[in-house]
């Protein structure tokens, strides 16, 4: 490719990326500026793209309702507990499916587990509600959602962990057995560290799902326990929605996942498992 063509292609690429960036970032930009407008400006028919007055008080107004901060805590508890359980079961089941396919049912069981994610959640919303009500007496608890979200997160965790475990060479475990170590020790000291980056990726996916889930949360909880997606629609005053507060609160709710991503990203390096076998 000649120098001139190369530059042209680069230019076109940059233009494309620029347009793409604007398309992607505009909603986020609009969310930020909306969270800084006052109610009148938000509800104007012709939208403004820069706040006429900056209303920083929006960010204190969202805490007026005492349950709002607690909703973030509740969301955190539910998402974290569910992630830990999903990872725990996912790791054990994934290992069994990867290493002992015959004894554990193999592809068929793995496929069945995954198929649990395929039905539309709405279809089981009401049955689930009655099931939990009957079993636990109430659905308005942390535990209800922690268990319920396993239905969605565990298949994902099992399937992904199975794939990660398959990537770990069997010889490593065999070498450790021959070296004289018991299977449990081998699993924890040799195998598990190798799938660590995969586990973190799975944890992130599970946590984000549980953090953001609205449909079941709205149905199951709302009095004793509230997650933040249930709180967001409550920012209404009479007949109008206070979009500025909705935007401010959801911006705050974005902070924990973003922080989590930034912290965990560095542990996701696959480098460790490279160069394990062959030279």
């Amino acid at each position, binding site marked *: 490719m000649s120098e001139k063509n190369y530059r042209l292609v680069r230019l076109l690429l940059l233009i494309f990326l620029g347009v793409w960036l604007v398309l992607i970032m505009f909603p986020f930009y609009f969310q930020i500026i909306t969270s800084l407008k006052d109610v009148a400006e938000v509800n104007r028919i012709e939208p403004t793209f820069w706040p006429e007055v900056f209303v920083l008080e929006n960010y204190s107004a969202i805490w007026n309702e005492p349950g709002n901060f607690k909703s973030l805590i509740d969301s955190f508890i539910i998402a974290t507990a569910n992630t830990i359980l999903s990872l725990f079961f996912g790791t054990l089941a994934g290992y069994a499916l990867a290493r002992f396919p015959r004894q554990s049912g193999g592809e068929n069981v793995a496929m069945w587990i995954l198929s649990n994610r395929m039905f539309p959640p709405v279809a089981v919303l009401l049955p689930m509600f009655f099931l939990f009500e009957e079993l636990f007496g109430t659905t308005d608890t942390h535990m209800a959602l922690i268990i319920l979200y396993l239905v969605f997160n565990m298949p994902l965790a099992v399937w992904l962990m199975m794939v990660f475990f398959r990537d770990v*060479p069997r*010889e*490593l475990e*065999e*070498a*450790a*057995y*021959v*070296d*004289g*170590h*018991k299977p449990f*020790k081998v699993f924890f000291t*040799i195998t598990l*560290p*190798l799938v660590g980056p995969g586990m973190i990726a799975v944890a992130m996916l599970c946590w984000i799902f549980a953090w953001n889930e609205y449909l079941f949360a709205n149905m199951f909880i709302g009095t004793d326990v509230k997650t933040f997606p249930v709180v967001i629609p409550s920012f209404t005053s009479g007949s109008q929605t206070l979009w500025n507060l909705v935007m401010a609160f959801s911006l705050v709710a974005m902070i924990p996942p973003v922080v989590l991503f930034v912290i965990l990203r560095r542990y996701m390096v696959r*480098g*460790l*498992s*490279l*160069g*394990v*076998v*062959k*030279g």
Partner: protein
Amino acid sequence: MAEVRLARVNKVYEGRGQQVHAVRDLDLVVENGEFVSIVGPSGCGKSTTLRMIVGLEQATSGEILFDGAMVNELDPQARNVAMAFENYALYPNFSAEENIGFPLEARGIPKQERRRRVRALAELLQIENILHQHPNTLSGGQKQRVSLARALIREPAAFILDEVLGHVDGHLRFQMLFDLKRLHQSLDSTMIFVTHDQMEAIALSDRIAVLHQGRLVQCGTRDELYDTPATRFVADFVGEPPTNFFEVRFAEEGGQGVLHADDLTLQPTPEMAALMRSRGDGRYVVGIRPQNLLCTPRAGTISFDATIDIHEYLGERSILTLRRGRHSIQALASAEGAWAPGDEITLNYRPRDIMVFDAETEALVA
């Protein structure tokens, strides 16, 4: 160190409705302190045999004995064998030192002692300077040494080496062969070495076991395999370049037995002829090693003519590929000769260098 004995060992893999008989009625004894190689082409069951000895695979039937004690039911942890893997199988999250010391950890040896023993062994294998490194920063040869060190660090009943030179190339391979031989001599340990490369086996072993399609075809010293191969397969597999084979008919001519391979006539010894005569069977396969086809006549040799097709120059010696009728024949010749394709030369052989195999069973007749 222990004697390893396999008695009528079978291994059958059950797949989806089909059975694969990987190892059939295997009898093999590896004496205490002996170096035995198991060789054979891919899929001959050599790795399966090894895995059964180590305990990573259960024998379907038969007995595996270490010093007379049956170990069939023992886990690999309890068998106390050391194994070096083809692809090294080093633990990537451990340093080289931790890798080598891992078997000692399993035996509850304190950290200080572990460290001391790892250092001592590292010196022997010349890897002291890489002990702190992780496997992904090591070269292939270094990985192989660390993997060998991990096998050598304890005093096992036997060392099992699975194609350990498979990924090592050229110059380093000679160095590793030398190291292995030296280690075996200094440790005086029972070693079982699996390889598909007969040259490695010949270089290292006291005895060589040849496996073919799950069966032990022959187990013996290099000379036994070379001079009296049990079957045509062994004659073909052991030796480089491979043996020349001819399908022949036994006939009587002028009162003595001869072997006709189309227009080429070979002359067996009178003893061979007598044996073939007594069997009354006319069809055989005859093998002559390229090393035994000489370009200069000697006392008692018989000659025939052939035309040079290809001349491969290998440094000290040359491989000549020759044509005689529809036969393609390989012979080793001195590199000094002026061999040119198209030249007709005379090849000489001694009748006792002829190997006669049954045409049906391919077993050695004479």
